[in-house]
């Protein structure tokens, strides 16, 4: 070691003398203060390393540790270290050193470590995954395409195999062609002959045997034996009477079933019962199924409640039957049951049940092509519909029975036109009847006092019908008898009509309204009328009171038309126009009245509150109409402003000339624009600014000045001055400049 160090120092000394000198100088000191100047020393070491790192390494380890780990101190032999330039020398600028595997193994051996596991990990199964928890094998995902491929190959192989099998099978068979070529007619004949021979031989043998039997008497013995066997054999008659515990319907014809004896207790004295195990199982299964599906309680619409014919099957509370009686089992005895009888019985039961029922087919009548024409059969059936006899309403007030004792036959006769024609003929034949016809109800109405009968067309019809009936009746009667009859009827008729019922008709209504018009009804103008007439009330005109009295009667009352009164009306009105002067002699009241009539005093209109009178009550700043407009929504919102629907005839030609003028607080008439501004300010409660107001004031002032300004002169009155000057100088011009020359010339001009 020491030699090594020395060797290095020598080297350095050779290369850099200066440095060595400085180092050697401080060397002793350094040794003493190794710990203190560590970093300094390091620095030096690095410097040295730049020159030769191998040498430096040796010098670095402290002495005590060297002794402890000797192999670490041994520097790796220079040839063994393969220097590798790193791929990027710029990175750190360090040379990358690495040992080969063998070298490291040697080194590891020296260090007492196990050799490198070179191949184990690399050669390892690629599916093996090493984890913290251990090693795992990852099963590769099955390759579906591989699978498909193998499957295809398998299939192909299988088909090939099958083909081969089939071919081998077929190869044993003879084809048609082969057999033809193989079989001759000869061979076939020979074969047949052989068969025939064999048959013959067999027959002969049988005959021989029979003969032998007969000879020894065996035949009879055999027969006896067979018979006895038959007798002793278990046959149908032994089964007769045995009970089978199944429903008869479950057995089907032509099917074999094995029935066994049912398990029973030995000591039971019951007779034997046959059952089929499978059927028992089935029954149990169906029962359990039924129990599962059955709803608790009663269901009226359950299908099980009714059999196929719609009759109720179950009895009341049948669900408890089983609990009380135990399970019921269908059974029958072999041999005692006749299937035919049973069926008959069943059909009888069904018939009995259906005895009261009516059968209805669901088949519809066959469809037919509709034709436009009647067939002959239909035509034969076809009849003209009877003409409808008009039913006449019977009214109580005119009882037909009173008028005609037997009205019913006229009703019948009215029906056909032919009859009426007959009747007409008859009428023509004897004109007497015509004369005797008394047919106008109008005449009768004249007889009645005031009240009119006959309401409407229907009533008329009724009357006509009556008349016709009478005529018909009369046609049958003869002579004086008829006359007497008719007269009597007429009288009756009139009496009947007079009974006192009021009949309304159009004319009556018309007349009534005629009577109404001149009178003052409740229709609306009454109040005004009263006011107009107030002035001459004092004079006590009777007509008015009469009118009022009529008013009091009310609208619905009946008024007789009074032509006289209607004529009198204008006269009273004339009196109102020509007002009599109230007399002064009847106190202050008279005087006041006079004053009022003369117009000295203004009469206050108490009845008509004008808008101007109550102006002070109106809202000052709000002029828009109230939108809610009361609560009565009788009229739609739309109709509110439409006004009266009746025409205002008196003012037909009236065309108002409306001119809207807005005036501001100072009394100036405003233009549309200004008016808008004014209203807007009012509406928003916010006036214009001070400047705006001043500006406007100025403008208005100027306007006033403009108006005042004379149109013929300037504001300074220069024209007036000019004229005065001209008057003074007596010249049509005036000299503006003050220069003498000009003046002289002008003078000279004047002189000229």
């Amino acid at each position, binding site marked *: 070691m020491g030699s090594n160090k020395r060797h290095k120092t020598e080297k350095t000394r050779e290369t850099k003398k200066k440095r060595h000198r400085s180092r050697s100088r401080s060397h002793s000191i350094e040794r003493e203060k190794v710990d203190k100047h560590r970093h300094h020393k390091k620095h030096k070491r*690095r410097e040295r*390393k730049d020159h030769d*790192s*191998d040498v*430096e*390494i*040796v010098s*670095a*380890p*402290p002495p005590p*540790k060297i002794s402890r*780990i000797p192999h*670490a101190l041994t*520097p*790796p032999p220079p040839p063994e*270290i393969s220097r*590798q330039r*790193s791929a990027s020398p710029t990175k*750190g*600028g*360090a*040379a*990358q*050193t*690495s*040992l080969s*595997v063998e070298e*490291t193994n040697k*080194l*590891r051996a020296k*260090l007492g*470590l*196990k050799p*490198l*596991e*070179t191949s184990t*990990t*690399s050669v390892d199964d690629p599916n093996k995954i090493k984890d913290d928890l251990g090693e795992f094998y990852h099963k590769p995902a099955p390759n579906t395409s591989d699978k498909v491929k193998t499957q295809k190959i398998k299939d192909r192989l299988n088909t090939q195999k099958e083909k081969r099998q089939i071919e081998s099978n077929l190869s044993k068979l003879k084809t048609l062609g082969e057999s033809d070529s193989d079989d001759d007619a000869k061979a076939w004949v020979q074969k047949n002959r052989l068969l025939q021979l064999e048959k013959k031989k067999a027959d002969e043998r049988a005959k021989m045997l029979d003969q032998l039997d007969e000879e020894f008497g065996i035949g009879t013995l055999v027969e006896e034996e067979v018979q006895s066997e038959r007798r002793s054999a278990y046959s149908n008659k032994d089964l007769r009477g045995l009970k089978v515990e199944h429903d008869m319907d479950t057995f089907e014809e032509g099917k074999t079933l094995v029935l066994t004896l049912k398990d029973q207790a030995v000591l039971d004295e019951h007779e034997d019962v046959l059952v089929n195990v499978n059927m028992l199982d089935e029954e149990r299964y169906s029962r359990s199924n039924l129990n599962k599906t059955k709803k608790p309680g009663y269901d009226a619409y359950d299908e099980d409640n009714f059999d196929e014919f719609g009759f109720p099957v179950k009895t009341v509370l049948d669900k408890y039957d089983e609990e009380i009686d135990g399970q019921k089992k269908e059974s029958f005895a072999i041999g005692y049951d006749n299937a035919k009888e049973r069926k008959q019985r069943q059909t009888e039961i069904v018939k009995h049940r259906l005895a009261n029922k009516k059968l209805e087919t669901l088949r519809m009548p066959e469809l037919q092509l509709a034709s436009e024409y009647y067939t002959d059969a239909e035509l034969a059936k076809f009849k003209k519909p009877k003409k409808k006899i008009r039913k006449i309403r019977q009214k109580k007030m005119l009882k037909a029975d009173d008028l005609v004792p037997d009205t019913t036959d006229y009703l019948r006769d009215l029906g056909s036109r032919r009859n009426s024609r007959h009747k007409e003929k008859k009428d023509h034949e004897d004109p007497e009847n015509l004369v005797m016809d008394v047919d106008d109800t109008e005449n009768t109405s004249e007889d009645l006092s005031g009240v009119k009968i006959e309401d409407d067309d229907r009533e008329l019809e009724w009357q006509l019908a009556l008349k016709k009936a009478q005529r018909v009746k009369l046609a049958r009667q003869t002579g004086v008898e008829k006359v007497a009859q008719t007269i009597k009827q007429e009288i009756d008729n009139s009496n009947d009509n007079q009974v006192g019922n009021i009949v309304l008709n159009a004319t009556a209504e018309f007349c009534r309204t005629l009577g109404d018009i001149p009178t003052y009804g409740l229709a609306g103008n009454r109040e005004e009328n009263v006011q107009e007439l107030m002035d001459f009330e004092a004079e006590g005109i009777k007509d008015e009171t009469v009118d009022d009295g009529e008013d009091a009667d009310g609208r619905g009352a009946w008024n007789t038309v009074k032509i006289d009164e209607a004529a009198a009306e204008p006269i009273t009105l004339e009196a109102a126009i020509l007002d009599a002067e109230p007399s002064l002699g009847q106190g202050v009241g008279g005087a006041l009245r006079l004053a009022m009539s003369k117009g000295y005093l203004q009469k206050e209109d108490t009845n008509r509150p004008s808008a101007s009178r109550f102006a002070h009550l109106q809202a000052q700043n709000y002029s828009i109409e109230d939108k809610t407009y009361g609560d009565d929504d009788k009229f739609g919102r739309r109709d509110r402003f439409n006004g009266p629907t009746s025409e205002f005839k008196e003012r037909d030609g009236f065309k108002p000339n409306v001119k809207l003028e807005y005036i501001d607080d100072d009394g100036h008439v405003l233009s549309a624009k200004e008016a808008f501004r004014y209203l807007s300010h009012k509406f928003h409660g916010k006036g214009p600014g001070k400047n705006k107001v001043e500006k406007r004031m100025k403008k208005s002032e100027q306007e006033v000045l403009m108006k005042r300004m004379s149109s013929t002169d300037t504001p300074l009155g220069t024209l007036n001055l000019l004229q005065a000057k001209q008057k003074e100088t007596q010249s049509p011009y005036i000299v503006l400049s003050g220069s003498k020359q000009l003046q002289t010339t002008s003078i000279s001009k004047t002189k000229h």
Partner: protein
Amino acid sequence: MLEITCNDRLGKKVRVKCNPDDTIGDLKKLIAAQTGTHWEKIVLKKWYTIFKDHIKLQDYEIHDGMNLELYYQ
């Protein structure tokens, strides 16, 4: 077998082959053999974790091709 690169960023860069079940101490000895520094003077670091001598490489999850920082104490 893994190969680990150790770099003090002062000029030494060493690639060391080792087993995953080697301890850090073993690794240090190998590095020391290659670089010539005493193995006890070596400190191996990755970011701020100083690897301890008695712990195996696989426990530190040191894998093939990893870079370790090489310091000296």
